């Protein structure tokens, strides 16, 4: 039976009920778009901008790709979701709406649409006014940074992107409101929606890291499917793409489809929701029980491991942590559900089930029942292998520098980042020499029974004996493991691979550098640090240095393309001052005379030759001096690589002495 009641009239009434929110958004967007837009297009500013394309980019950034706007969209979706469905949390309001001769799906549809319109109409209308204002100045049809990206097109794409974001958050909030009977519970559910899957993935990583010796933390955790399951990721991705004037059609479509699915789920649950659940934290008892289980298990797990780990793996503390966290978490969740302290442990069966499941999961990890540590593929299953290690280039030995030029022409390089050699897969050795790799792996701690008895609880050279292996299997999958070694095994079984020139070229960036690109060489005792900012040249050499940089001009350049000094020069001045102090404090050895270009080139060639000939045993042996080579990479950026001056680099040491580095005296 179709209701005679007009949906349009009901929708109008529903929007009227949200009059305050609608007016607030309308006024807010009106001020933000046409009003401030006209100010931005005022003659005094507009005429001073020479590049109209640049101007459109600025307007686009202001009008659509502004992270603040995405925050507004998120906030509006959350607020309107709560406002539209808050009546479900009030017994009086539920009585009113559910007694009306209107089907529940119609009530839901009207409320859902009203909330969306309250946001969309003020947003779209004011953007349209903004475009009209721009059109009056004749810049609306010009293209922005992206080809074909005139301002109206960009703004329409922006509206679509914002709408997708709005719909996702709005639908999730609606779902949370339907699932619950109190606003605080709904907000908690929204947080769970946004973070649960990534949190479980993180928990898995933590447990594997703690229990498995061969576990290798995935360097691309942020790109994993679990992280993609978070609406926050989608939001950040869409915001980032929009800022780059790229319309993220794939994720927009995905978000709209997911929103539609959530909306369908909302409708289904709405129809099944009992009116009497208004005011109760959770509206569906079965879902509440499942949610409690899904929350209590991981939290109990992490708490148990925490107690066990911080007490030096004390079993009694582990047991205490398990019981304590199990009862605490179950009690807290049950209290939220029932708001009665006497009933926090009323569901004893579920507490017991949670405890048993938690123990079972811990047992799987503790006893490695899935055979994670003992896993080794058959040779026939392996396509290729990548090997990475942290002992040739420990973390921090490859720095990325940024260049700036002070007012007096001083060129300063400051470290902005360090390449994580262990996690940078580009620097791993890709080999098909499976025999050598299997020999290497089989003599690791995980497979060598004599390992512990020979070396005690902790192996010698523990700091240096990590080898990470990525197994690329023929079935298309890949598995990563990390193996530890005694120094003796490492030298013996890695050497056949490590001493191949191919291995060194792939894994040691300085071997791929053109000697003419070497900018500077510093030497310091092995127990000290190199400065994180250095002065390259000063005075009259600054210009030539800038020219040399070419496309490698860093973002932090104090000189613009036009050669005009910018405000950054002041910053560069401070950086130069800092670099002077840093270099003075570092125990750097300096040659008697600055090295010439030819000397630098010769030194670089000698280093490269020595590194190619250096044996693994020489690398692992002690060294008294470190050398840092600053060079310009292929991408134009400046890198600084630290190299141990081991006995294998005898020719380099001799050349350094010849050039005036007083290695022996300083030692």
């Amino acid at each position: 039976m179709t209701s005679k009641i007009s949906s349009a009239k009901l929708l109008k009434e529903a929007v009227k009920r949200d009059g305050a929110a609608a007016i607030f958004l309308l006024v807010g967007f009106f001020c933000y778009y046409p009003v401030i837009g006209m100010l931005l297009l005022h003659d005094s500013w507009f005429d001073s901008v020479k590049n109209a394309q640049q101007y459109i980019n600025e307007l686009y950034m202001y009008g659509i790709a502004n992270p603040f706007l995405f925050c507004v969209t998120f906030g509006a979706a959350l607020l309107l979701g709560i406002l539209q469905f808050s009546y479900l949390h009030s017994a009086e309001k539920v009585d009113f709406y559910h007694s009306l001769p209107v089907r529940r799906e119609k009530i839901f549809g009207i409320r859902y649409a009203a909330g969306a319109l309250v946001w969309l109409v003020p947003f779209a209308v004011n953007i349209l006014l903004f475009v009209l204002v721009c059109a009056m100045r004749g810049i609306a049809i010009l293209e922005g940074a992206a080809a074909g990206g005139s301002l109206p097109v960009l703004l329409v794409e922006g509206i679509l992107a914002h709408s997708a974001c709005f719909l996702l958050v709005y639908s999730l909030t609606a779902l949370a409101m339907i699932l619950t009977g109190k606003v605080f519970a709904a907000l908690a559910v929204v947080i769970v929606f946004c973070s649960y899957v990534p949190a479980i993935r993180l928990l898995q990583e933590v447990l594997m890291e703690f229990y498995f010796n061969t576990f290798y933390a995935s360097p691309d955790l942020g790109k994993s499917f679990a992280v993609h399951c978070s609406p926050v990721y989608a939001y950040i991705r869409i915001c980032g793409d929009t800022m780059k004037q790229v319309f993220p059609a794939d994720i927009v479509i995905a978000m709209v489809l997911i929103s539609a699915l959530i909306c369908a789920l909302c409708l289904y649950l709405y129809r099944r929701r009992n009116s009497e659940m208004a005011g109760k934290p959770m509206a569906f008892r079965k879902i509440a029980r499942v949610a409690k289980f899904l929350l209590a298990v991981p939290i109990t797990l992490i708490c148990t491991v925490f107690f066990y780990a911080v007490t030096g793996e004390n079993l009694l503390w582990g047991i205490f942590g398990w019981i304590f966290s199990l009862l605490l978490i179950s009690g807290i969740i049950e209290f939220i559900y029932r708001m009665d302290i006497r009933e926090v442990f009323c569901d004893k069966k579920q507490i017991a089930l949670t405890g048993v499941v938690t123990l079972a999961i811990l047992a799987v990890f503790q006893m490695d029942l899935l055979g994670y540590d003992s896993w080794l593929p058959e040779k026939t299953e392996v396509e290729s292998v990548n090997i990475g290690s942290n002992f040739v280039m420990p973390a921090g030995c490859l720095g990325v520098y940024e260049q700036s030029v002070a007012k007096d022409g001083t060129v300063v390089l400051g470290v902005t980042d360090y390449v994580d050699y262990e996690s940078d897969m580009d620097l791993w050795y890709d080999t098909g020499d499976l025999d050598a790799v299997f020999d290497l792996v089989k003599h690791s701690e995980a497979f060598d029974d004599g390992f512990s008895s020979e070396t005690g609880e902790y192996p010698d050279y523990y700091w240096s004996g990590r080898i990470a292996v990525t197994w690329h299997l023929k079935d298309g999958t890949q598995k990563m493991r990390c193996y530890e070694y005694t120094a003796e095994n490492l030298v013996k079984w890695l050497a056949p691979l490590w001493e191949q020139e191919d291995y060194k070229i792939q894994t040691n960036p300085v071997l791929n550098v053109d000697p003419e690109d070497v900018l500077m060489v510093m030497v310091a005792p092995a127990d000290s640090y190199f400065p994180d900012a250095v002065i390259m040249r000063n005075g009259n050499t600054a210009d030539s240095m800038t020219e040399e940089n070419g496309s490698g001009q860093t973002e932090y350049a104090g000189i613009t393309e036009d050669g005009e000094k910018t405000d950054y020069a002041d910053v560069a001045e401070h950086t130069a001052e800092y670099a002077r102090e840093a270099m003075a404090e570092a125990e750097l050895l300096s040659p008697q005379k600055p090295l010439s270009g030819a000397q630098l080139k010769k030194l670089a060639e000698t280093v490269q030759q020595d590194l190619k000939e250096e044996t693994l045993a020489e690398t692992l042996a002690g060294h008294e001096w470190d050398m840092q080579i600053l060079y310009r990479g292929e991408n134009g950026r400046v890198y600084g690589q630290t190299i141990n001056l081991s006995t294998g680099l005898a020719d380099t040491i001799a050349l350094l002495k010849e050039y005036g580095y007083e290695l022996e005296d300083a030692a």
Partner: protein
Amino acid sequence: MIEMAGISKSFDGIRALDNVTAQITEGSVYGIVGTNGAGKSTLLRVLAGILRADSGSVRIDDMEVFENVRAKERICFIPDTPHYFTNARVRDMLEYYEIIYPGFQRSRFTDLCGKFELDLNRKLSTFSKGMKKQVFVLLGICAGTRYLLCDETFDGLDPVVRQAVKSIFIDEVLSRQFTPVIASHNLREMEDICDHVGLLHKGGILFSRDLEDMKTDIHKVQYVIMNPAKEQELADELDIIKKDTRGNLSCITARGSREKIMAAIEAKEPLFYEILPLSLEEIFISETEVIGYDIKDIIG
């Protein structure tokens, strides 16, 4: 006609309605009375299609109510604390009811508001509790539905307004198909308005009868019978619900026709006897006492 067949409803393991079976026929002002927690509000919310009964069925004019728009178009429900929109004026609610109830009588509503001195342009939040209830009773009457379900709606209304509403109800009942169903624990107020009463107790209907019939079926008599043996015989002959004795003066509440009770007493040669008027509250107290309910708890 509203037909309830074996309706049960529980909340958190507490049975609010227990196998309720009753009928509400058209053309009467039906009162549902009961003790606090008897299930009156729950029953009305089930009748209004707000709550889904755990078992049993509710049919209105041969149609299931829950999620049945056609059936719900015949019902208007006024809860104990009616909901109105934030900052809504009487006129706003009038306009909303007009959308929801196609048969809404706008002119009648404005007339009645005038008679009850309710300003259409005044915000509902500025009205007293009683005035708000008046507004919603008038909205309910003018909604044009066949059934009007009122939950404790007349609590707090002054006797003049109550009488005025009663006369409006009677007019409506006589002029069109209209059956108000009123739930309350306030028996004095119910007695003013209702002509048929269902007594709800601990989730079940104890009885459902016409008010006049009830009054003719239960009587209160005080008498003096000097012969204890005859008095005992009288006690055996009559269906006595309640008996108080002070010295030689006895006061009984008994079931049966007036004639039968009087004849039985006269046969025992009393020194004195008289029939006393029986209020709905006394009938209610008597009935609930029979099933062991403490009288102190029901004086509302």
